[in-house]
């Protein structure tokens, strides 16, 4: 597989959210504002790149029996770095994201990519796979949050788009809307892309 293929596969063809249904918890929780989604996405991209790179770099020395412990430790360390960075540099966003930054550790996408790709492939390929998976995840987050923020607050990235005449949909601010939107998104992609491809 070429590097371009690795990227396209992990970002689109085998997207973690709409194809593998991983990382759903945070896709539902932090998608009420686009800024939160973007920061969360960047956090996951950072963690994926560096955890994939490190896990891949030491894969030939890692004993099978402690493989998963090592992976969790490495992922945990990078997530804590993201958390500390946000608290020091972007404290307001850190407060809004609350426990979800720490929960990147349990985001199935990261462990999934570590096990499925980084543990078997070269460091550079693993890094590209991490970038792809992270961008794929961020794309989903931003798509859902753009709809939620626009209808729920009348704004995008905090900039008011719809005027005062717009009646804000409070359902879009609450968690259930993320369930509907994610389900609709998965349904459309499955029908328009995977079914067409299969036939």
């Amino acid at each position, binding site marked *: 597989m070429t590097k371009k293929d690795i990227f396209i596969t992990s970002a689109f063809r085998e997207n973690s959210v709409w194809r593998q249904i991983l990382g759903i918890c945070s896709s539902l929780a932090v998608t009420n504002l686009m800024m939160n989604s973007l920061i969360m996405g960047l956090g996951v991209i950072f963690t994926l790149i560096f955890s994939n790179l490190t896990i891949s770099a*030491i894969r*030939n*020395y*890692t*004993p*099978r*029996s*402690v493989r998963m*412990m*090592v992976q969790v*430790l*490495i992922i945990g*360390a990078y997530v*804590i*770095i993201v958390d*500390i*960075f946000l*608290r*020091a*540099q972007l*404290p307001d966003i850190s407060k809004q994201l*609350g426990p979800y930054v720490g929960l990147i550790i349990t985001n199935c996408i990261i462990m999934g990519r570590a096990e499925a790709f980084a543990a078997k492939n070269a460091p550079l390929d693993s890094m590209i796979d991490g970038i792809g998976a992270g961008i794929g995840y961020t794309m989903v987050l931003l798509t859902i949050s753009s709809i939620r923020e626009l209808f729920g607050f009348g704004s995008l990235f905090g900039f008011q788009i719809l005027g005062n005449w717009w009646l804000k949909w409070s359902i879009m601010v609450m968690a259930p809307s993320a369930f509907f939107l994610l389900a609709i998104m998965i349904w459309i992609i499955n029908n328009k892309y995977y079914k067409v491809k299969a036939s």
Partner: protein
Amino acid sequence: MSKDKTAFQDTQYYPVIFMLLVTIIFVGILSLFYRSTEKGIEAYKKQTYQLQVMSLFADTLSNITGISKSSFTDLKEIRVNYPKYIKEMELPIVMGKTINKKYYAASTVQDNVIGYCFDVTGSGLWGTMHGLLAVTPDFKSIINFAIYDQMETPGLGARVEEPWFKSQFAGKPMISNNLITRFSLVPEEAAPSVNQVKQITGATITSSSVLKIITAAAGELNQVFELKAQ
């Protein structure tokens, strides 16, 4: 695993040593990173706390000084305005024990004290709640109240930090006729009287804990006030 494993990699000690090494390396990296950002995090914590203290007096300070309210609620202006209007003080020792370690006196430029602010704590449903209670100089009524740190249920008890809940304490009597006001709770939709407070729906324990915190603080302050009056 690589196919050309060394003999050492086959021993039972290898996984233990490997795990230990990886742990030491990553904990080391984390400690270094934390140490380098620690000061910034602490400074931000201190500033947000000062902002909380100052915003309790924002309305009163704005009325007296004529400066816009946002100057007292903006994090960027804290460095200038906090030392100008707020003084950190120690409470006098009453009957051999210090009642509260620290308190804050808000005053205008003419040294005219407009109120005192006390750091108050009490237990909530899941853990300790920390709040700030601002009172008039005669300790008789509440200027403002806010919870700034809590571990209550998100979406339920954690709503104690919402403006509608905090703002309803503003102007309520704390001590009248030498008696501490006993607040009671009314449902969220109801219209409360002077001695009533709207509770958070689904978080009765948290709401009553807030009342307990205020009553306990009022008791302590009443003691100080009585001694001061003697």
